[in-house]
């Protein structure tokens, strides 16, 4: 099949950088957005939003080729959020990248808002409706197959969770990704050591994850999801490893950047008292 024609570059791409100071500044700004959204709703997935901010900053500002003014550009790299409840983190990234307006973040979770607590694909910048967990990698495989068939030079990044490593569909898609040698497919597996009923080790053991993904035929790496040099090195290694899909298991800390949330008893759904928010904001500013 001939390559589908892509139109001329009508808009600017997000400028990508490997500068650590710049990436950390993006992550900090995203965490501020997360706290603002979470405070309005009063509770919720603030732990996930803070925990994933560094990984999302690394993806959106060092890897992902997208055009903020043209979100449906056919040659864009796809970022597929499987875990719909991490929407708070995604919206922060989309706002920081200029794909949705920062002012709109104040409507997060409100009746009638498109920034639903679980991200719907009708919202600009959201590639797939996640939230029924275990869908993300299956659709990412399809996108990777489709982009390759059409000769588009685009990659697919899928963020999934440790909990999703229990869904059979995740492993069915993992087989397919390796079988079809989708080396432009990257699965980021967020290990925050948490799911609805507690830690995965208590709920349903999933380790050793590195060995599992490798055994399924994926080029696998495992890094600290708050270590920007390690994240960038992992992305660099992907570019020099052809023939296989890529898994990066990222170990993250829920609530990262706000000491009070990092230290509280881990919970899938955090309840925050109204008076705690000013402390949270202060602690975020004090964190390097």
């Amino acid at each position: 099949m001939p390559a589908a024609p892509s139109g001329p570059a009508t808009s600017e791409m997000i400028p990508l950088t490997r500068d650590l100071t710049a990436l950390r500044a993006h992550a900090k700004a995203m965490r501020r957005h997360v706290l603002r959204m979470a405070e309005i709703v009063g509770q919720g997935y603030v732990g996930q939003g803070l925990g994933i901010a560094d990984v999302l900053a690394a993806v959106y500002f060092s890897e992902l080729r997208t055009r903020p003014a043209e979100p449906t550009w056919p040659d864009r790299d796809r970022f597929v959020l499987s875990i719909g409840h991490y929407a708070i983190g995604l919206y922060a990234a989309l706002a920081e990248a200029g794909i949705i307006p920062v002012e709109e973040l104040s409507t997060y979770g409100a009746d009638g808002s498109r920034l639903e607590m679980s991200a719907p694909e009708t919202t600009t910048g959201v590639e797939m409706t996640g939230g029924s967990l275990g869908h993300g990698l299956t659709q990412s495989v399809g996108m990777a197959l489709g982009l390759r068939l059409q000769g588009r030079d685009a990659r697919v990044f899928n963020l999934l969770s440790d909990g999703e490593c229990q869904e059979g569909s995740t492993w069915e898609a993992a087989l397919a990704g390796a079988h079809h040698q989708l080396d432009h497919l990257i699965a980021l597996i967020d290990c925050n050591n948490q799911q609805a009923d507690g830690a995965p080790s208590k709920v349903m053991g999933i380790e050793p994850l590195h060995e599992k993904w490798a055994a399924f035929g994926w080029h696998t790496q495992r890094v600290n999801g708050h270590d920007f040099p390690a994240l960038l090195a992992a992305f660099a290694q992907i570019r020099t490893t052809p023939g296989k899909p890529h898994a990066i298991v990222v170990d993250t800390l829920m609530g990262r950047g706000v000491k009070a949330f990092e230290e509280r008893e881990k919970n899938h759904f955090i309840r925050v008292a109204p008076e705690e928010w000013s402390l949270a904001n202060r602690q975020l500013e004090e964190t390097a």
Partner: protein
Amino acid sequence: MTGNILTSDAAGAAKTETAPFGHALVRAGETDTRIVGLTADLGKYTDIHVFADKFPTRFFQMGMAEQSLIGAACGLARTGLVPFATTYCVFATRRAYDFIAIGAALGRANVKIIAGLPGLTTGYGGTHQGIEDLALMRSIPGLTVIDPCDAIETAQATAAIAQHDGPVYMRLLRGVVPVTLEADYKFEIGKARLLVDGADVAFISTGLMTTRALEAARTLAASGVKAAVLHVSTLKPFDRAAVAALLARVPRIVTAENHFITGGLASAVADLAVDERLPIHLKRVGIPDVFCESGSLPYLAERYGLTAAHLVSAAQEVLR
């Protein structure tokens, strides 16, 4: 309005009970040691944690894997146990449909599937709102399908299905659950209950919509309209005798369900009217043919037409 997505449906209820399913399952489990529990990473969110705390060795956490959950429940049943498996409506019925149809129903496994977040009892949009689960479950031969109204009925139905031999799908009202039926209410599998009699118009309702039908009947009574309320908590097997008797007596009918208006209660009533050649004037109140938005529960009930006021208007329409 912001932040109301997490408002529970019990907001404003005069009387409530906490985790009626979990406590009823403990009571059943105390006398019947065949009863075991399972969940797919939703123990805390489906009230079965009460059973898990009481009987830790009789509880199996299956992880977030709904097909495996239902399959394992069927396997447990084949060893003579009585498994209660919990998750949300959407994940049980959409993800594990084949496992319910074949493992539980065709295989006649004695499993009880307890499914949370029916209809618009969650603000989390199309991925979490079980709007077509009753239609899916009613379409499976041999499956018993129940949609309880309140805390009292949830507890009674839990006890009843524990004794019943055969696969059951029951919708779950979880957490702080309103008490809206009278204290002398008696649940029986397969039996509809006439809660209020009236000759002008009849509400035929299921699940939590019965609470709203009772409210609508009170509103209508104030303006001199006598409305009956027939509560049909067992969708399958359907109480054809009780419903047909009402249709014959009161042909102006409003059905009310916290579910898609096709494939659930309204369809069962319409099928029966056709089969029995009963001329009725039917208005269906339920969720329209769309995936619903995300939002607070009062907002959703208003937006998709499920309030008591909507039932009053529907009754006035069939009376015209």
